[in-house]
């Protein structure tokens, strides 16, 4: 294994810990409705993966990186996905965030439509929460680093 990132500690962190943190973050998000956990924790884990990669590689990190500007935009997109789920259910005749009125369901809960629709709604809003939390952590890091470069 060629050493590319300085010492072997940084090498192992970058090659092994960062990808596993990201995969674990995705797992926590997808498993959020079944086990304790969910959007907030998954977002924090995904952000830790990106922050770790950035700490090791610095500015020339091209593999696991989100630029500050797109992080701000994606944080807004995450919040918008959450609100959009509410609006979709409203447009289809339900109340705000009444997941029983969603147009489709992912998976089936033993053929029962109502729990499947609600699980789909939870999945969508947690996607929004995950994006928002992850990108907020990254963009705070980004502006703080940017500010340290000036002075």
């Amino acid at each position: 294994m060629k050493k590319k990132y300085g010492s072997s500690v940084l090498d192992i962190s970058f090659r092994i810990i960062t990808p596993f943190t990201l995969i674990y973050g995705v797992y926590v998000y997808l498993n959020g409705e079944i086990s304790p956990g969910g959007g907030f924790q998954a977002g924090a884990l995904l952000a830790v993966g990106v922050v770790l990669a950035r700490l090791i590689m610095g500015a020339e990190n091209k593999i696991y990186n989100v630029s500050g500007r797109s992080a701000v935009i994606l944080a807004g997109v995450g919040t918008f996905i959450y609100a959009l789920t509410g609006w979709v259910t409203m447009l289809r005749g339900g109340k705000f965030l009444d997941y029983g009125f969603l147009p489709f369901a992912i998976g089936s809960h033993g053929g029962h439509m109502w729990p499947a629709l609600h699980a789909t709604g939870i999945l969508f809003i947690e996607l929004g929460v995950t994006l928002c939390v992850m990108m907020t952590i990254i963009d705070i890091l980004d502006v703080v680093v940017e500010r340290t470069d000036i002075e």
Partner: protein
Amino acid sequence: MRVLATIILFIVTSVFCLNVTDLPVIGDPDSAPNSHVTPHYIEFSEEDTGSPNIVTGVLADYRGFDTLWETTVMFIAGLTAVIILSKNREERFLKKKKGDKK
């Protein structure tokens, strides 16, 4: 001023201490938090929300509106940090000032 603050602190502390005895006993099945909607959540959470985990069911489904604004607060916090600390904004601001002088 110090004396006044001490007196107010004493009064507030004694009010809190007196009210502690009126709090429900921990684990009391007839207390207000354990008798209003909690039994419904425990009984029907899985068929209502499709989530085997009651905490997620309450957080994302029964209390979904609350979580929406929680997310919005987080987004606004990040946006505020960006607005205050951003380099681009400072540059733009300084350029505008120079333009005014010209």
